[in-house]
């Protein structure tokens, strides 16, 4: 996988994000530029409030920057409108969140079916079942999120993220709500699927162990990229 790093799937140029707060203007991201190659696994690390989640949001097209440009899979992200970005996400991006973000009214399988259904794919049940079996939840297809443990919920979320075969997976503190053993398990699964599908991973984390498993870590402090460290191995 590492060898396959060829062209950049994410390219960021002069990214700024400022918000106006009662205390005055707040700079969340300050003139940030970076490049992520296809197939790479990148961790964004930093203390709370350093701007790493803001960066992830902008990279995924969930938020818009105040200045700067982001290219995602060759598309100038902010030249697209909101629906254009959604369509790009549909075809290109998978998500895993700290708080799982499963829809409480849908069963595990229906949650996995959702992105396919929204993409207009027909007959998606077998695909979703297969994906859940892949993450070890073949027996849990008809369970609702609240009937699942945290680790199981996160596995459903991973299945949902990978079922569309994304080119890039964004993960926001994917182990943040899990105990260390479960977190370990989930990470294992994430990288396994990543290997299988040859996707790029961009994850935000506090977890040094997790960061070390990535090809490199980008450290953010006060909205600035302060260091890029290459990990030893994946």
């Amino acid at each position: 996988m590492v060898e396959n790093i060829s062209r950049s799937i994410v390219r960021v140029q002069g990214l700024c994000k400022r918000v106006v707060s009662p205390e005055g203007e707040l700079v969340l991201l300050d003139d940030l530029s970076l490049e992520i190659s296809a197939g790479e696994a990148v961790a964004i690390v930093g203390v709370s409030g350093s701007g790493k989640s803001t960066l992830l949001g902008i990279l995924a097209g969930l938020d818009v920057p105040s200045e700067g440009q982001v290219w995602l899979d060759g598309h100038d992200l902010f030249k697209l409108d909101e629906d254009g970005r959604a369509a790009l996400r549909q075809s290109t991006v998978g998500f895993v969140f700290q708080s799982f973000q499963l829809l409480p009214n849908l069963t595990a399988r229906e949650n996995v079916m959702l992105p396919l259904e929204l993409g207009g794919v027909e007959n998606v049940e077998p695909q979703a079942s297969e994906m859940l079996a892949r993450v070890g939840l073949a027996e849990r297809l008809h369970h609702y999120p609240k009937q699942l443990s945290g680790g199981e919920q996160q596995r459903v979320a991973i299945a949902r993220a990978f079922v569309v075969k994304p080119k890039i997976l964004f993960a926001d503190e994917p182990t943040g709500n899990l105990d260390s053993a479960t977190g370990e398990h989930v990470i294992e699964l994430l990288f396994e699927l990543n290997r299988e599908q040859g996707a790029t991973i961009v994850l935000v984390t506090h977890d040094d162990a997790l960061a070390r498993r990535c090809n490199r870590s980008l450290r953010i402090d006060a909205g600035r990229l302060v260091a890029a460290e290459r990990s030893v191995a994946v």
Partner: protein
Amino acid sequence: MRHNIAASIRMSWRMLRRDWRAGELTVLSLALVIAVGSVTSVGFFTDRVRLALENQANTLLGADLVMISDQAIAESLRVDAENFLLESATSIEFPSMMITDERNQLVSIKAVESPYPLRGELRISQQRFAPDQVAAGIPESGSIWVDMQLLDLLGVNVNDMVKVGETDFKIAAILTNEPARASGQLFSLAPRVMLNLDDIASTGLITVVSRVRHRMMLAGEITAVANFRAMVEPRLQLGQRMEGIEEARPEVRSALERARRFLGLAAMISVLLAGVAVATSSQRFIRRHLDSCAVMRCVGGSQQQILSIFMFQMLWLGLIAGAVGCLLGFGAQFVLVGIIGSLADFALPPPSLLPILFGLLTGLVTQFGFALPPLLQLKNVPSLRVLRRDLGALPARSISTYGLGIVVLSALIVWQAGDLKLGLYVLGGLMVALLLLAGGALLLLKVLGAFRAHLFVEWRFGVTNLMRRPMSSVAQVIAFGLGIMVLLLFSVIRDDLLDEWGNSLPDDAPNRFLINIQPNQVESLSQFFSEQGLKVPTLYPMIRGRLVEIGGKAVQPENYENPRAQRLLERQFNLSWAAQMQTDNQLITGEWWAASESEGQFSVEEGLAKTLSIEVGDTLVFLIDEQRVTARVSNLRSVEWDSFRPNFFVIASPGVLESYSSSYMSGLYLPENEYIVLDKMVRQFPNITVIDIAAVMTQVRIIIERVTLAVEYVFLFTLIAGLLVMYAAIYSTLDERIRESVILRTLGAGRRRLLNGVVAEFVTLGALAGMVAATAASLLGYILAVHLFQLEYQFNGWVWLVGIIGGGAGIGVAGVLGTRKILNYPPLLALREV
């Protein structure tokens, strides 16, 4: 992948099933089902009551529709009626003299054919003052049925033979009730002689009598009657007219009009409550779907796609819940009819399909009216909400959020009222009520907040809870307040307004009219009554005249478009004169004449004045005995037509009419056991005709009683809708409450303390709502009473006491029942959901 409608429809259907299965739609659909159910049950029921009332009123007409003509009615019309599947029967009526060896008497002959009467019944008896029974059919050929007075007037008895024209007939029975007669001209009645239409030729009377009135009576399905009327009416010739229930007696018309208003009002309150319940539960549904929307956006759903998925989901829900609601409404009205049927002999015709349409439409427009604005906001939920939950919260509920719902509901209310004025009154009242509820709630919350520090700890906790969510608390006070307001209106309207209405027909209202009293009999008749130990009735002079000029201009029927105006000008009026205005009349404009005034003046009933465009100061010319009688209109007055006391359209000041030939009339109340007095009176004054209006009055009274009953039952449904609003309001805060209680329990608060906090909160909320609801209900009751029903209104202090105590207790219990789930909810489960 671009947005695709068919895919959205499939997706919405799947989402609906998933949401339903997850229990997400229970309250919203329940709100819709109950809303549509209550609206349609009210719709079905009022529809049937309306049809029944119209039929009831039709018995006073003897048919659903009558065509009256001064010439024989063309046979082709009967064929037309058959084509419309209408039953028909013709009759002819004319005055004639009946002569026996000793006496002669002017009678009113009516020749009828089967199946007369089409509505109502003929009643006959075999002996004077004997109990009567329903006649089976009409007089057989060769026999006649006659009014009892005629027996006295002619000195004959049942089974005697008498001559009508050239033929001898046997008097087979005494005619005691004749439906069509009640709608005829009460004051022009000579005693009735009824015979079979087949016999009329043999009497030889038709050829010589100039004034014959032909009637064709029609009855059938209501729309067929209306269609037939619409077809025939434009082709009517001079001297022909149609009379439906709308043109029947004014007292029946006013009773029907009031019935419609009451029932319409009750239905409208249900519609309103439905809207509130739907709005409250839609809000919760949408609030709970914010995260779903963000996730869907995140995994690639476009704004348009997500919006259309939710829109279709709402549409399916609206249609399904609407259909279930219609079924519920249909079932509920059967129960309702069962209850009423057991209390009264009240056969209701089957309902029309209109209520289903109205129910479905109500469900859909209420749902979309209230759910659409927040639904439109859903598409703007930022996908970033998946990372930051604080983003994309729904903006505070405001007028603009509910604007569409309010507009839609207002339109529905006006449509349901079927009367712009009534609709606007109720809307105005509701608007004031809502403002009052909202303003009152805010004010009371502020006052409570100031005293918070002095409260017990649980109450402080409860009140703090209310203060912490001021907008939500105000919304709940409004919802509860509306519910309580309905309950109070239930008692205020029913007990005060209905009583007032019922009282407008006093027990001693006249049940007999005496007419054809000669001026020289006035004194001896008064003496007769005092000799019998009875109250001497007021005798009113009566004189017939035709109105020929208004304000110096000759008036012709064809000058007026209004058919009532045309009829009024075609026929003669009953005029009277008086020095004093009748006590139950009310002066509207102008002045009543003083005793000292010598100038002749007229006082005109306001309805007549409006119809004929007569104003104070106009000079009217009446043609009486071929002479022109001229006087100026000095005042307009209103008359209570349903009081049954003798009343006149036009009254002259003393000195104007006395020189013309007149007769006198009177209305008197006789208890059942004193009817024998009438027999004595008729023997002593054979020319006086006694008209039994007890039968007509009984019918009107029955209508009023049944309508009262119907209104109560209709309000029962409104009440259920009100309770649902309360439930929806409690349910809408359930998520937040569960979260809070879990945090509190995790921190060590006991169930008892939590329970006390909930009780304190809901009791306070209920009492606040009760207080403002009582104020709003009193004002609304006042507005309805004074401005709409023209009844007096007394503010009732109990309303406040009942409102506050009942509201506090009721909402307290409902609140604890509705939220007991939070006390038993396992904290871990709740924390996992948070």
